[in-house]
Every structure is written in structure tokens, then in C-alpha cells.
């Protein structure tokens, strides 16, 4: 019963299979269909008993680092390069196998884009590490 993160990006990742304009330039009904699909995915996962978490992230970002002893935290002013990776959100699922996670990720990627056609978005599938050590000794 491993957990997986299905990660969506605003940008970054492999070359898009179907390049599309930003969502604010889509027809209103296409935007509606797209967001309705996101809700549908969450409901589907809940009814399957596979849902753990879903979050969407705002694209605004601040990079922060330790400033050193007695110094304020250092933040970057931006802007950040357009090529950098930008996470949009995720689902966390609890499933029987890696195969099932891949199947669900492919379904997520079939989300409707402009004209109602699938987006073919690349979904980053990552296994969540199990916090608890196993109960048998490794050899």
C-alpha cells in the first residue's frame, strides 16, 4: 500500500506533447471543463478509497535562505527565469501498486485542454518514502 505523489507543473518537465497557451487564454467553457475534471479526479480517488491529499499552489514564489548568525533571512527579489521548474499542485494517493499509480497519472493527464481535447500533460509520479522502518531485519 505505497503512497505516490502525482505532481502537476505550471512549467518545467519534459517537452510538452501538446503545447497549449496559458489557461487564461482558453475559451471559458474549456476552463470550466478543465477545473470540473480536477474536482472529478478528487471525487473518484475518494470513492475508490485511494485519496490521501490534494493541493493547488499559487504560482507566486519566494526563495528564502538562512542569512547567517544574527542576520535576517535572505530572500530573492526575482523575477525567476521562465525556464525554471514551477509546481502547480498535486494529489497524494495510497494504492496497491506502482502500476496503479501510473494508470491514475495517465488518467490525470487526459484532462481536457483547449477545444476539449486531452492535454497530454506530463505528470511527475514520485513514491512517498515510508516513515516507519520495516519490522524484519535486513539480512
Amino acid at each position: 500500500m505505497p503512497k505516490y505523489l502525482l505532481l502537476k507543473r505550471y512549467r518545467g518537465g519534459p517537452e510538452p506533447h501538446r503545447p497549449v497557451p496559458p489557461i487564461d487564454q482558453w475559451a471559458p467553457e474549456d476552463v470550466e471543463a478543465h477545473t470540473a475534471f480536477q474536482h472529478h479526479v478528487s471525487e473518484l480517488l475518494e470513492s475508490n478509497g485511494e485519496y490521501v491529499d490534494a493541493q493547488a499552489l499559487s504560482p507566486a514564489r519566494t526563495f528564502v535562505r538562512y542569512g547567517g548568525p544574527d542576520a535576517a533571512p535572505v530572500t530573492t527579489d526575482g523575477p525567476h527565469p521562465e525556464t525554471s521548474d514551477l509546481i502547480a499542485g498535486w494529489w497524494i494517493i495510497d494504492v496497491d501498486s506502482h502500476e496503479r499509480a501510473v494508470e491514475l497519472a495517465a488518467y490525470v493527464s487526459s484532462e481536457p485542454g483547449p477545444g476539449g481535447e486531452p492535454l497530454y500533460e506530463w505528470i511527475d509520479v514520485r513514491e512517498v518514502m515510508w516513515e516507519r522502518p520495516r519490522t524484519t531485519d535486513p539480512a
Partner: protein
Amino acid sequence: MIGEPLAWDEAALRALVPRVLAGLVRRGEDFDAAEDALQEALLEALRVWPEHPPRDAHAWLSTVATRRLVDARRSEAARQRREEAVEAEPRVGGAVIAEEGDDTLFLLFCCCHPELPPASQVALTLRAVGGLTTREIADAFYVPEATMAQRISRAKRALAGPPARRLDQPGDLAVVLRVLYLVYTTGHAGRVDLTGEAIRLARQLTLATEEPEARGLLALMLLNHARLPARFDSEGRIVTLDRQDRGLWDTREIAEGVRVLQSALALERPGRYQIEAAIAALHDDAAGAEETDWPQILAFYDDLVALTDDPVRQDPAAVLGRAVAVGHVRGPAAGLLETDRLREVLGDRHRWHAVRGHLYELDGDLPAAATAYVEAARLATNVAERDHLVRQAARMRAAAAGRP
């Protein structure tokens, strides 16, 4: 009587769950509805019993659950008046299962139905046989309670209706054993100790069946569980078998495990759990790591891999365990050679690289050991193991560079 000490704690109550539930299901009630009704009866018991302890707890639960079932059917009937006449009749044909056999066994066969996915088998077993609450099961698996509730109710719906066939076939016992071992290896988190729960369920199973593999599984759990107190240091870091403080091992659990194993082996029908338990017993038996009887362990691994026609594909974990034993008996190079056969099947798993790291370390090839441990750490899916493997790699690098 008022003033009498409370005789019914939660554990005693939970122990009654399988008997009462099996009684209801055998009488022809739907598994789904009966389980819901029993959960309500249990809540009622926790509320009422401290003031009014029952004379016969089993009968009390059964009566209250039956009343709940009748209530549920009555409200259903109110919506569909035509069924009202049927409602008074006892339902038949729900389960055409013979009365014989133990209740626990019967329920385990239901919950571990081969057509349910493993996650559902585990959840249903913990709820219907173990008597854990949905909240506790959800905590143990780090999922939201609503998700676990949904998983359990889907599984129960899948079991609703008459069983297509008798469930007590030998093949199904193998599924039950696998589910219980899965519960055991999931370990413990928060308030719920699944290792203890798995041992409790396995012990119940051995009372219900003569099958030696059930005893083999119980022995395996006990013999592994005995080492649990030594397996982590005070910081929660993994301590490998060769470095464990053996004084921390639970000798009472080891003695019980050995006794259970011997009673299984006496039946002379060996199987994988008995063999794995025998290997665990040999580790437990050594007063120090250097006294481990590796030749005997290797002999048991030979038996283990002989259980399947194509062990590399069908049981690669056994072949990998055997490679470690080969390394200790015939030398690390021989052990490494054994792991080569598994490269195609296990080459992308952290355990394969961790074992090779161990064998390189035995061989004194510290740079190769470090490389293998690093690769194992990269592939690990468990935080404690990843941290352990990173430390091993760092230890190898430091030793290779001549640092202390």
C-alpha cells in the same frame, strides 16, 4: 452489580467480535449489514456495560446487533412497503456455509477473499476480525479516515450476497497467511501496534486450524518480534543484526516461537513460513553474531528456494537471502556471484544493492561497498533505511580513506 470493578475493557470486547459477527453471517445476514450492526452494538456496550455489566456478553452483543439489523430492515421496508411482509421472515440463502469450523477462521476467509485487493483484505481483517476502529486503521496506514471508511465499505459491498463457493479451501488459507504477514510487516504507528495485532490474529488462527504453515507464520512473527527492542537505537537508527545488543532480545518470545515452530515441524509438511521461521530461530539462537550457524541457515535457504520451480523469478527474495548465507559460508565472492543471477529481476531494488554492499564489505572491498550502499540509498523507499544506507556508505568511504 454496582461497585463491581469493570470487567470489560476494550481488548476483551474486541475478542468477542469474530464470534458474534460469524454467528450473524452464518445465520444468513449480509456481511456488510451485520458488520455495521455489530459496530453499533459495540459502541452501545462501551456505553452501557460499565453501569450494567451483561451476564452473557456474547448473547448481549448478538441480541443488540440483531435488533439493529431488524431496525435497519424496518426503515428500508418503510420506504418499500411491499417488502414489509418479507421482513419478518428470517432471511435464508445469504450464506450457504456449513456450521462447522471456527468463527475466526470463517471470518478470515471472508475478509481475505482472493478477489479483494490486498489493501482491502488488510483493512477488512483488522476491522472485522481484529475489531479495530476505522480511525485506528486509518492512522496505522497514514490515510484520512474517510478514505479508509470508503475502502472498507467498498470491500464489504464486494462481499455482500451469497458466497459463490465454500471459502475454506487450502488455497485461501495461503491468502489469509499472506494478509496476516502483511499486517505484521506494516509495523506500528501511533496508537496502533500492528505487529502485536498480527501476532494476536495469527495465534487465533493456530487455534482454529491444524495447518502447520499457520503455526510457521506465528513462529516467524514471534521470532522476529523478539528482536524488535534491539533493532533501533535510542535515536531511532537501524541497528543491523550483527551489531544488536542480544541482551535486549525477548527470550520469552523466542522460547514460544521455537515451541510453536517445533510443533509445526513435527507434522512433517514443510512450507515457506516454517522454513523462514527456522532461519529466524537460528539467528535468535546465536549468543553473538560470530556464533551464527551459517551452514545450517544456508541449508534452510536451499530448502526455501527448492519450493519453487524458478526461484529467481518466483521467489527472488529467497534467492537474495540465500546469497547472504552463501557469502558467509563460502566467502563473499561466492555470495556476490549468486546475486548476479538476480540483476535482471531485482537490479532496480534497494535490497539487492544493500546485500551487495554487505558482501563487498565482508570482502574488504570498501570502495565497491560504498558505491553499492549509495545506490541502495538512492532506491530506498523507507526513510529509516535510506538514512541507514547513507551512514553505511559514509562509513565505508571514511574507512577506505583511513579515517576512524
